[in-house]
């Protein structure tokens, strides 16, 4: 059983993908493509953390881009104005995001039914741009922060690529362990039968706060990686388009699965070029895409993959059985 698990086609695919990602810059990637990959690494972390909240813990959080922004701005301001090293400021940015958000959003809203956190986080994310504009002196206002120092002096795209790849792998690993930890089990229990889980001692509020704090921290860290890899951040990151893109990444890949957000963000980041061709219809298309997926294909790409897998298994009867717990809900 262990042998077939290790050798399953999914692990093989992941191994190949990892090798490809590690070797890619040497295969002669253009600067633009390296840039896209960096965006993919960062956005897939954002999507994966968002999915941890929405898909696994069942928290309808709409403010995750705000976590990214807080982490990014904090790290950028500290590095630029105080000359601290990004390796120090990024965790600080993550902590700032996590503290602020857990205090102002998590504490008030997570005790209550799902709709409140959705409302509060939406309003929160919408208030951030006006706060940023008001604090022009520190945050650069509507123009944003520019020329944020990179991870190393004289950093090149290729360094940023590997550093963000490292963050991507580390954070995905943390998320993987979280889903399989007692916290992940707590949410499965809560979903199956909230009353029974509560009588067994599962504290819904505490577990929700935990994942909220973790996910906002990691998203804040991703924000730090974002500013130090790309050098700029502005209030447009908090606009409607990144928000929709984030949701599309989760929905397209498959909410509630582990690989879903990663696949979804790959499709969206690399497919964004096509979206740009649509010009002013971009947002309408995104909205239509999200509506369409929710109505007709709620499980996203992973649902497709599962269907194909089942079909193949029926046809050939030779593939190993699926590993248990690969999906959090059917």
């Amino acid at each position, binding site marked *: 059983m262990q042998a077939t698990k290790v050798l399953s086609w999914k692990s093989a695919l992941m191994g190949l993908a990892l090798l490809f990602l590690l070797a890619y810059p040497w295969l002669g990637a253009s600067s633009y493509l390296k840039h896209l990959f960096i965006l993919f690494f960062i956005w897939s972390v954002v999507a994966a953390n968002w999915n941890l909240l*929405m898909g696994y813990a*069942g928290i*309808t959080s*709409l403010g995750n881009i705000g976590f990214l922004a807080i982490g990014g701005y904090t790290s950028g301001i500290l590095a630029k104005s105080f000359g601290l090293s990004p390796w120090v400021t990024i965790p600080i940015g993550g902590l700032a995001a996590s503290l602020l958000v857990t205090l*102002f*959003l998590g*504490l*008030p*809203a997570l*005790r*209550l*039914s*799902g*709709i*409140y956190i*959705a*409302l*509060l986080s*939406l*309003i*929160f994310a*919408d*208030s951030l741009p*006006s*706060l940023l*504009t*008001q604090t022009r002196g520190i945050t650069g206002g509507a123009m944003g922060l520019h020329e944020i120092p990179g991870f190393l002096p004289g950093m090149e795209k290729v360094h940023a690529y590997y550093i963000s790849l490292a963050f991507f792998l580390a954070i995905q690993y943390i998320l993987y362990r979280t889903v399989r930890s007692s916290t992940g089990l707590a949410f499965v229990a809560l979903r199956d039968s909230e009353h029974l889980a509560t009588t067994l001692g599962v504290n819904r509020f505490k577990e929700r706060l935990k994942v909220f704090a973790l996910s906002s921290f990691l998203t804040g860290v991703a924000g730090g990686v974002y500013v130090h890899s790309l050098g700029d951040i502005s209030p447009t990151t908090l606009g*409607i388009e990144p928000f*929709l893109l984030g*949701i599309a990444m989760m*929905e397209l890949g498959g*909410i509630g699965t582990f690989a879903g957000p990663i696949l979804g963000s790959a499709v969206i980041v690399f497919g964004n070029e096509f979206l740009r061709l649509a010009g*002013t*219809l971009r*947002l*309408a298309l*995104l*909205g*239509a*895409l*999200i*509506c369409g997926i*929710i*109505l007709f294909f*709620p499980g996203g790409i992973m649902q497709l993959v599962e269907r194909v897998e089942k079909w193949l298994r029926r046809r050939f009867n030779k593939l190993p059985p699926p590993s248990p717990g690969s999906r959090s*809900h059917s």
Partner: protein
Amino acid sequence: MANLINAIVSGLIAGSLYAAMALGLTIIYGVSRVFNFGHGIVALLGAYIAWLFLGQMTGGLLAGTLVSLVAMFLFGLLVYRFTINPLLKKPGWETSTVLFLLGAGILLENVLLQVFGPRVKSIPSFLPGGLRLGAVQVNWHELSLVVIVLAAIAALNAFFKRTRTGQAMRSVAQSIPGAQVVGIDIDRIYGLTFGLAFAVTGFSGILLGTKYYLNPHIGWEWMVKGFVIVSFGGLGSTSGAIYAAVILGVVEAIAVLYLSAIWVWPIWFVLFMVLLLLRPQGILGGRL
């Protein structure tokens, strides 16, 4: 001092308009427990439909309003039947309806942008002139808006208390199994509720359009205020929404007087956060 009184009066007027807008939201939530995240766009759509009829004929605004009411009612029915209904049948509908309505709202907003263009439109006020009571300046137009809103609230009240459909809606809001036991068709009531709420919301959009400038983006601002108001009043409580709307309208006006208009969003956020910390069920106690 005169400024403060004028601010309060302005806030009362804005509050009554907000109340009209929040009604649709609380009606849908109260009956079907679906929170309409595309609420602002619905209001805007109603306003734009009425706007089309302006200047086309005499009494254009009235004709536009009637057409808008009917169109929005039908639109609500269709939205329920073809999109919300299928989603409600699957598990995890709370999240899926939220994301779906958000996406649909943005889709609609951009369609409106394409069709009507980004330049602001307005629906002209229908009564010129105003009134001075000492230091206070009020327009007849704005007063008439308040009267219209009061009339609409009274009409809705009568609808819910006296007609069978209205009573059916109230019973579904109270208890779905109970309503089913007495033979009410839940699906049909949900559809009618969406239709009614969309019509009311579109109507409130027309009213708002006479006071504020219309552009596709203002829908989000109305929506967010609607959210806070509805929660303040207590989710599911229509009278709560009305009181909350008036109170918050005044609070907003005073805050804008002493701070600047840029702080509007953060103010609403803080108000909401404080509400959730202190009294999440709202003034009149709604569903948590």
